[in-house]
């Protein structure tokens, strides 16, 4: 009887995780419409022009975000195999790289851009796209901070780590958005 109830509880947990996954993906799809609209607005208003931005800085922040996604994937894989040390290290690395991305975009790119948010379509598009994306990076960083804190308290295991999976998927989603924003802002069109 006890083994039967334990099996039922296990199946119930799996069902719960499956439902959570579906919910998270629905959120991701709905959120992607916001970014899709921004991308369309960029091409509608600027067409074949692009803002004058620091190319090297764009490449650096893009690389930082891609490496952060690698560490996030490593963190999730590690906790799924009960490797707590790698999980904690990789989560901390992702968090640090996320902060580095924010410093690169908001601390440097915003300051170096030769226009302000009110300087025509170029400024409005650039600050809206990078601002909305940076806000998502910031919420991802906060989410990672919570996961890291709980991880340090020993909250996750190979059997139960939904929060880590959710944080990882959210983080990768933010990375996917930047994969499309980077060429749209820095590479496509003429200055």
């Amino acid at each position, binding site marked *: 009887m006890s083994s039967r109830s334990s099996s039922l509880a296990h*199946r119930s947990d799996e069902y719960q995780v499956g439902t959570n996954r579906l919910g998270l993906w629905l959120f991701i799809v709905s959120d992607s419409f916001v970014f899709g609209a921004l991308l369309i607005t960029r091409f509608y208003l600027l067409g074949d022009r692009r803002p004058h931005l620091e190319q090297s800085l764009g*490449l650096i922040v893009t*690389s930082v975000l*891609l490496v952060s996604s690698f560490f996030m*994937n490593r963190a999730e*894989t590690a906790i799924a*195999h009960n490797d707590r040390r790698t999980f904690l290290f990789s989560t901390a690395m992702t968090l640090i790289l996320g902060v580095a991305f924010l410093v690169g975009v908001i601390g440097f790119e915003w300051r170096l851009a030769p226009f302000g948010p009110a300087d025509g379509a170029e400024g409005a598009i650039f600050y809206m796209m990078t601002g909305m994306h940076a806000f998502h990076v910031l919420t991802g960083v906060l989410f990672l901070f919570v996961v890291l804190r709980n991880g340090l308290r020993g909250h996750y295991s190979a059997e139960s780590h939904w929060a880590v999976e959710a944080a990882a998927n959210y983080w990768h989603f933010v990375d996917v958005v930047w994969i499309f924003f980077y060429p749209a802002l820095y590479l496509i069109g003429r200055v």
Partner: protein
Amino acid sequence: MKDHDKDKTIAFRRGVVVLLALAILTAVEYWLGISETPAVFLWVVGLVKAVLVVWFFMHIGRILETQEGGQR
């Protein structure tokens, strides 16, 4: 236990391979951008990068694996 470690090693290696692919594609994308190549090529590279992240890092296939009643 050994199978468990082997799985972990394979998953870690897969992550490194995907990162390398993303790095190469980003370098290609940058080169295409500064060479003022038609935008369609940049979109193709971006799409391939996005598919790599969604498939290997976000594990989109996991939603399909979860069937009704909690069975995987």
